[in-house]
């Protein structure tokens, strides 16, 4: 850079020089004035101090030139002034140079206007091409910016809305006024999200989701940016989701109802109510069972919010329609009722104003058990989603109907079973009462003639023995004995029968007492035979029936005494042995003739007699076994021929009483 001041000293002053100095001075001053103007107008100008110093330096230099020109004519006058002006110019220029030196690195780092412009274009492009409506308003809600997406969303072109209030987007009587939102923003500047409805240019309501954020300039809140988006698709998805959730809840509820055995119609009504909440169906029906004969039962008809149950109807005549071929196959069809012409079977549909019917079959193991039918005036009601619901709920209905029919079958089986049991019980009772009548008759009528035979034979022997010789008396005795044996047989048989028939209520019975009573009854027999009976003291308390126990032990002890070799004195022992848990085993042992082991089961059979030498009916041990078994016990035998017999009876013990 050439310093104009130094330059003027070296070059001889001429007029030309003076003129050029004047021009330079003018330029310096005007530059400095323009800089001053620039700094004053562009308050955001970077490095204003540098500009001020530059302005000062240029102004001082200009002043020096003016003095130089002045000195051309009056050189003597201006000596001191020139020195001051030059000094000032030198100082200010040096300061400007130093400042310049300091500022340059910063200035180099600054973005150029073109760069800034590009940046702005980029940002503007984002806003312009955004799919979301971006609107900027001032704090009073006046619209300042409006992008293309906003125009698409609301219908207003930019030039129509700039400067207007944002409240043009609010629907009338709206509780979420945009101006109110902006007011709130002033007090609490933060980004807030909303979902609501706005009105567009054609005054239609549109679902929108939007956020409002504060906009600052130089840390000063100046307005708000609103970003809005069409919310309809999202709401639609949410609605769909809600419907599917509702369907799931319905299915769960139906499952519980199935478990509770709620009637099918109650459940089917819930399904139809759900379907009704989905769309504009003019008529809905659930059909089951399915008759091939041309008739069917409509379990439920839901028309205009009214349920009708169990109506018999006739099939639509499909044969002459375009559906004839496909109707037998597949599980779901949409039928256009106008194909049927004017027929009486259509009347329920006509009343409801239906034209299209979606007919969904319920199929269980390949068998059609019913159908779900939904009718509507137009075909577009049957969206993919609706069809999916119909399909799914048809399955649920099939489960319901199948379940009910299974329950019905079970109930019917139960009833049949009960009837069978009743019939068997009745038969058994008849047999029982016949048996009772029989044994009653036996005990009365069969014994009477026997008693007559016996009675008169003995009367004969008593009253007319003088007239009968020994053979005659022997014959008469044989008649009496025969009659007596037959009577004992009959009595034993009646006892055996009674033990099998009568009700046996078990209770705790002291066996010791029972056996004592038996010994008292047998006392005469025992004395006559010289028999000896040893009884364990004490005998246990068992769970049984006193009368039956008495018969059992009376027979066992009686047998033990009876079956001894002639002349032998019988020795009988009754003892107790601890046994399995809850039972007790009682032994009746003798020193009698014994029984071969191979006969140990036969002896308990009725009419089984092993030795004709001993009198008896062959019923005693059969009574023992039957009696013991009826009391829940067991009986058995250990014996060898000639070595005595050991009979055992195992009886339940009464439950321990806690004292």
């Amino acid at each position, binding site marked *: 850079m050439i310093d104009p001041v130094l330059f003027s000293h070296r070059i001889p002053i001429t007029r030309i020089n003076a003129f050029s100095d004047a021009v330079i001075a003018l330029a310096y001053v005007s530059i400095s004035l323009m800089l001053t103007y620039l700094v004053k107008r562009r308050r955001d100008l970077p490095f204003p101090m540098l500009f001020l110093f530059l302005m000062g330096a240029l102004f001082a230099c200009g002043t020096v030139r003016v003095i130089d020109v002045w000195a051309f004519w009056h050189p003597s006058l201006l000596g001191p002034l020139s020195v001051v002006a030059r000094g000032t110019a030198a100082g200010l220029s040096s300061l400007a140079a130093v400042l310049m030196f300091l500022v340059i690195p910063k200035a180099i780092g600054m973005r150029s206007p073109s760069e800034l412009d590009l940046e702005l274009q980029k940002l503007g492009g984002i806003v312009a091409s955004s799919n979301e409506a971006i609107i900027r308003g001032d704090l009073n809600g006046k619209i300042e910016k409006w992008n293309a997406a906003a125009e698409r969303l609301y219908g207003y072109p930019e030039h129509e809305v700039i400067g207007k209030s944002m409240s043009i987007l609010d629907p009338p009587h709206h509780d979420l006024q945009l101006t109110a939102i902006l007011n709130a923003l002033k007090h609490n500047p933060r980004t807030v999200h909303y979902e609501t409805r706005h009105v567009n240019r054609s005054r239609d309501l549109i679902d929108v989701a939007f956020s409002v954020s504060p906009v600052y300039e130089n840390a000063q809140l100046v307005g708000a940016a609103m970003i809005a988006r069409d919310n309809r698709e999202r709401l639609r998805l949410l609605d769909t989701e809600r419907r599917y959730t509702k369907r799931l809840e319905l299915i769960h509820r139906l499952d519980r109802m199935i478990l509770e055995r709620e009637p099918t119609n109650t459940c089917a009504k819930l399904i139809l109510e759900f379907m009704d909440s989905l769309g504009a169906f003019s008529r809905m029906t659930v059909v089951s069972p399915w008759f091939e004969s041309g008739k069917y039962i409509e379990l439920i008809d839901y028309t205009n919010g009214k349920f009708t149950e169990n109506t018999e109807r006739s099939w639509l005549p499909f044969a002459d329609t375009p559906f004839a071929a496909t109707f037998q196959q597949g599980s779901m069809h949409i039928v256009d009722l106008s194909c049927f012409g004017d027929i009486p079977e259509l009347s329920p549909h006509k009343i409801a104003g239906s034209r299209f019917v979606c007919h969904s079959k319920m199929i269980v193991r390949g068998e059609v058990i019913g159908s779900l039918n939904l009718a509507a005036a137009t075909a577009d009601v049957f969206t993919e989603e609706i069809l999916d619901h119909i399909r799914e709920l048809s399955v649920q209905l099939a489960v319901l109907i199948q379940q009910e029919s299974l329950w019905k079958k079970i109930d019917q089986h139960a009833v049949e079973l009960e009837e069978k049991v009743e019939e068997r019980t009745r038969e058994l009772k008849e047999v029982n009462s016949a048996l009772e009548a029989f044994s009653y008759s036996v*005990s*009365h009528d069969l014994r009477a*003639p*026997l008693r*007559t035979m016996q*009675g*008169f034979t003995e009367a004969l022997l008593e009253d007319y023995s003088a007239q009968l010789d020994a053979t005659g008396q022997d014959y008469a005795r044989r008649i009496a004995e025969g009659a007596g044996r037959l009577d004992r047989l009959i009595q034993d048989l009646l006892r055996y029968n009674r033990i099998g028939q009568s009700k046996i209520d078990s209770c705790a019975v002291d066996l010791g007492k029972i056996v004592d009573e038996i010994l008292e009854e047998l006392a005469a027999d025992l004395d006559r035979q010289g028999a000896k009976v040893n009884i364990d003291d004490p005998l246990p308390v068992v769970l049984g029936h006193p009368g039956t126990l008495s018969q059992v032990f009376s027979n066992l002890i009686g047998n033990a005494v009876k079956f001894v070799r002639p002349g032998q004195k019988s020795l009988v022992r009754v003892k107790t042995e601890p046994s399995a848990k809850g039972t007790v085993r009682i032994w009746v042992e003798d020193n009698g003739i014994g029984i071969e082991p191979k006969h140990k089961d036969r002896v308990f059979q009725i009419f089984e007699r092993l030795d004709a030498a001993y009198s008896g009916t062959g019923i005693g041990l059969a009574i023992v076994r039957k009696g013991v078994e009826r009391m829940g016990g067991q009986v058995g035998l250990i014996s060898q021929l000639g070595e005595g017999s050991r009979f055992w009876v195992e009886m339940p013990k009464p439950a321990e009483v806690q004292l």
Partner: protein
Amino acid sequence: MKSLVLLAEDDDNDVLLIKRAFQKSRVANAIEVVSDGEGAVNYLSGEGIYGDRARYPFPVAMLLDLKLPRKSGLEVLAWVRQQPEIRRLPIIVLTSSRESSDIRHAYDLGVNSYLVKPFTPLELTEMLHSFNLYWMVLNESADISYK
């Protein structure tokens, strides 16, 4: 007048054996026999020929078989116990049945004693001897106002 026992028994043989036993046991009582339930009722109520109490005196006790034609022994028993005038008549069942249902029923209807016909004539004689001793000699009967 000898005290009389009324025997309701349809079996001729039994009647014969009982009469024989009465004789054997030297019972002084007279015996009148009716062969069915209705006969017993008629006798006790003095119907028809039984109206002649000189010929058919009112009995001191009745031996009653259960299996009787026309009216069973239990029906006769029930009927007697419903007649205010004669309901205190001692009635002793003498039957061949040992069925506990018969025994229970008879006692429920108010029988005074229940005897089962013994099998041998000797036992029968002993039984009727005891019967006589007990009911005719030892037992104190209540007044009966019969027709």
